[in-house]
């Protein structure tokens, strides 16, 4: 009968959860330790949690979890270089988890969702200038939080560099369209072919007069162009922002993406857009802009995993998108670094020892004495006197 898990020794790899045929174990993924993939991700996507959910076939929850930090998984699956895969613990055993493929899989489900209007929860409007990665991301999180958002875009369609940039920067236009139309169904307003000129003297006042109480400036690279009026810039000419909150020198103006950084990948831009949205939410509700945003990272210690079963990495199908069964299996490869296993359903243990044999950390103890079963030769069952 399953007896105990030594919590200190447990490395959270989930070997027990994954192999117990009676489904006795569960994993606790909440930990003050940051998994290496998350630490390396510009957006801090929590793939430990996402994979743990996928291991339980909780597809919707996995997607929701990803969406908390990554508004456009289908785009990230395509345009991100996935630095998260590099430090993956699995790398030490066979090969890193195909996080890109999993993200693309979730992304495919994500764009297929039809979204309903988000109930409006706030009076004050927010302006987002530029519908590139940063602007769309900020618009997404603000809209989701119930702010009325208007996106001003100079071009005729959304996407910024992901649509109009160099060929290697471009994403599937159909996916961009899908996300733009999702945003629209959620309630965000797009003003296309509407170049707002932030170098003009009264641009901020004009927005304010229109009812906008906060602005996200996400117009892309501004270096060598006319600087935005009234905002402090860095030596190189980008808008100067607070690294945590993206707040500019003007309290209600936030800049994200290339506008505020000399280099910016689409995922970095999306991460910045999200930060700007959170910070705007904070100030519009009267809090400090950085409330709840200062998260420290504590790396997970590396432990010996050499005894674990090697599993082949699944590469994606079309456009790197893993099909459902491969995505779920790829998630099973994840070692959920830093989690802890627990005995969730002891009533079903059959004393087969598989968990103990497979645990690489020697953390599990199964007692060889099994559950009490009806003793067929006991007086009660054999009848009469013994």
């Amino acid at each position, binding site marked *: 009968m399953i007896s105990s898990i030594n919590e200190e020794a447990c490395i959270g790899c989930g070997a027990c959860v994954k192999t*117990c045929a009676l489904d006795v174990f569960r994993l606790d993924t909440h930990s003050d330790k940051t998994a290496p993939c998350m630490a390396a991700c510009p957006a801090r996507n929590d793939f430990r949690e996402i994979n743990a959910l996928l291991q*339980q*076939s909780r597809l919707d929850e996995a997607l929701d979890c990803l969406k908390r930090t990554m508004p456009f998984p289908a785009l990230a699956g395509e345009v991100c270089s996935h630095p998260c895969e590099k430090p993956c613990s699995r790398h030490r055993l066979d090969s890193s988890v195909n996080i890109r493929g999993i993200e693309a899989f979730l992304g495919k489900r994500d764009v297929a969702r039809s979204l309903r209007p988000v109930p409006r929860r706030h009076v004050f409007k927010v302006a987002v200038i530029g519908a590139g990665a940063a602007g769309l991301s900020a618009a997404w999180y603000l809209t989701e939080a119930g702010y009325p958002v208007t996106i001003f875009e100079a071009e005729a369609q959304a996407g910024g560099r992901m649509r109009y940039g160099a060929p290697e920067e471009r994403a599937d236009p159909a996916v961009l369209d899908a996300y733009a139309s999702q945003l629209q169904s959620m309630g965000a307003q797009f003003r296309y072919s509407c170049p707002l000129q932030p170098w003009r003297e009264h641009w901020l006042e004009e927005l304010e007069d229109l009812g906008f109480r906060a602005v996200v400036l996400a117009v892309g690279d501004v270096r060598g162009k006319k600087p935005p009026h009234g905002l402090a810039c860095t030596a190189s000419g980008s808008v100067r922002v607070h690294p945590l909150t993206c707040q500019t020198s003007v309290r209600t103006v936030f800049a994200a993406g290339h506008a505020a950084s000399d280099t910016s990948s689409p995922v970095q831009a999306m991460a910045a857009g999200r930060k700007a949205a959170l910070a705007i939410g904070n100030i519009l509700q009267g809090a400090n802009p950085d409330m709840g945003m200062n998260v420290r990272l504590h790396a997970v210690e590396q432990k010996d995993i050499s005894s674990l079963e090697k599993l082949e990495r699944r590469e994606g199908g079309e456009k790197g998108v893993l099909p459902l069964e491969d995505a779920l299996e790829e998630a099973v490869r994840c070692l959920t670094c830093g989690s802890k296993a627990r005995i969730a359903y002891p009533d079903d243990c059959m004393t087969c020892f598989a968990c103990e044999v497979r645990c690489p950390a020697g953390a599990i103890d199964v007692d060889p*004495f099994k559950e009490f079963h009806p*003793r*067929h*030769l006991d007086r*009660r069952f*054999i*009848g009469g006197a013994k």
Partner: protein
Amino acid sequence: MQAITFKTDVLIIGGGFAGLWAARQASTHVKDVLIVDKGPRDWAGLGGMSGGDMITLHEDQDIHEWLDEVVFFNDGLCDQLMMLDTLRDSLPRFHDYEAMGHTFSRDSRGRYVRIPQRGLAHVSLTTSSPTGKGGINMRAALLRSLEGCSVRRMGNIMITAITRNGNRVSGAVGFFNRSGEPVFISAKAVLITTGTGGWKASYLQNSMASGCVELALEAGARLRNFEFIDNWNVPKLFAWEGQTVLLPLGGRFINNRNEEFMAERYSPVLGSKTDTQYNIRGMVLEVKAGRGPIVFDTSRIPAECMEEVTPAAGWMKLNNEKLKKLGVDFFKDKIEWMPQPIASEGGIATELDGSTEVEGLFAAGTAQSLPTGVYFGGLSICHCATSGHKTGDAIGRYAANCETPFFDKEQAQMLLQRELCRLGRTGIAPKDIVRVTQELMAPVDVCIMKSAGGLQRALQRLEEVKHEALPRMGAEDPHYLCKMVEARGMLMLTEAYLRASLERTESRAGHFRADYPQRDETSPLYWVEIRRNHGEMELVRVPLPLDSYPVKPYRYYMDQFTFPIEEVRKFLH
């Protein structure tokens, strides 16, 4: 209800050894085979825990001698054509295993080890090497052999019903058992390789009631041989695997007077070297006569064999070490043993190619009816390979030549909603149903020395449970929903067992009736078959087609035993 939908050519329910063998073969004919299993995707069912002992008819052995002996062992009740296929195909499958990289044991001169079974002259098994890793290695070999085949595998999906379109299967429905997400599967053909399940006894019978009874009956298939169960001897307190190897080497069951009671009283010819069913009958009579407890004595196993029988790897090694630490020495101490009903030996009645009378529905492995309660070690691994291979071939060919039938989503939704509506409901715990069922099966007059009185009493209790407890079952979460379906499956399996046992009013092979201790020589040999009729189980006696069988039964294994009538009658209250 938003369901995850799969479309496939061949759906295989159950990724145990039979399912894996079938998938491998079916994939040579169709573009896509999908295996779903309620357990982890890669666990490979019970086979992965097995010893990997395999009945194999080697080149120098005579198939007719073997068949004659099997018919004798089964007291005539043998599907001879299927058995012939099984024996004939055992060697090619054995070689397939080797080609996949699996190793079988050889003696010092390089010959395959052959361990005779149950005191029989011919039938023998070949063990896997090294001891303790047989099943683990077979599992790995099978999984490797599937690489590159057009086979998809999905774990953690519980199948709850097979869908039909007229008399033609169209797929199945189920749910992810960790999330409750609905799953619909449209398929050209469906193969049941779920095993038939059992009573979740302590012999590592990990996968309990498999739902096979419910799946098959509801789909319209016939069940056969449900009066036969695998009664197994186990140490009272812990698990020990390897009896089939220990007995031929000199292991014996002895009573509290140190007598090898089987040899002493019940079968001077065979002693303990017999089928478990017979040993258990002896055990029961001994205990009833006050000569219990029964212990397993290994002192006569020759010293040079000790290395071979001491677990060297896997869970058995761990188990042995742990027991030693707790002061228990399996080979030196007097370890008390007890019998347990482990699993049903019934199965789905099929043609030789695994097809059933429901179009597009097939069965293989332990879900297919073959043994009749007496069992020689290694038959299961062999039968899973032979029937899996053969049925896989047949279902692949079938699916390659037909269109995908219409999959009725509304029907599918209705079938699944029956289960999902229990999710989140507080109610009687599945484990309690399991416990009640185990207790209901436990009395000796229900599972070993059966009698009409005992069986009726159990049936009555079962009906109570069915009507009072079953509808009140609840499932707090998807895990328990899965366990709930399993528990219901176990109840249905038990009902099939009790009804079939009542129907067979004689004793033969693994079936012993204290009120009918003799063979029924007046009526021709028959199978007891079960089909569904207006929601109830209908039982029919179907005569064996002896005319088409090569062996006309003329000698009977059971005749080597004498269980004194007056002792047996003590079990008729």
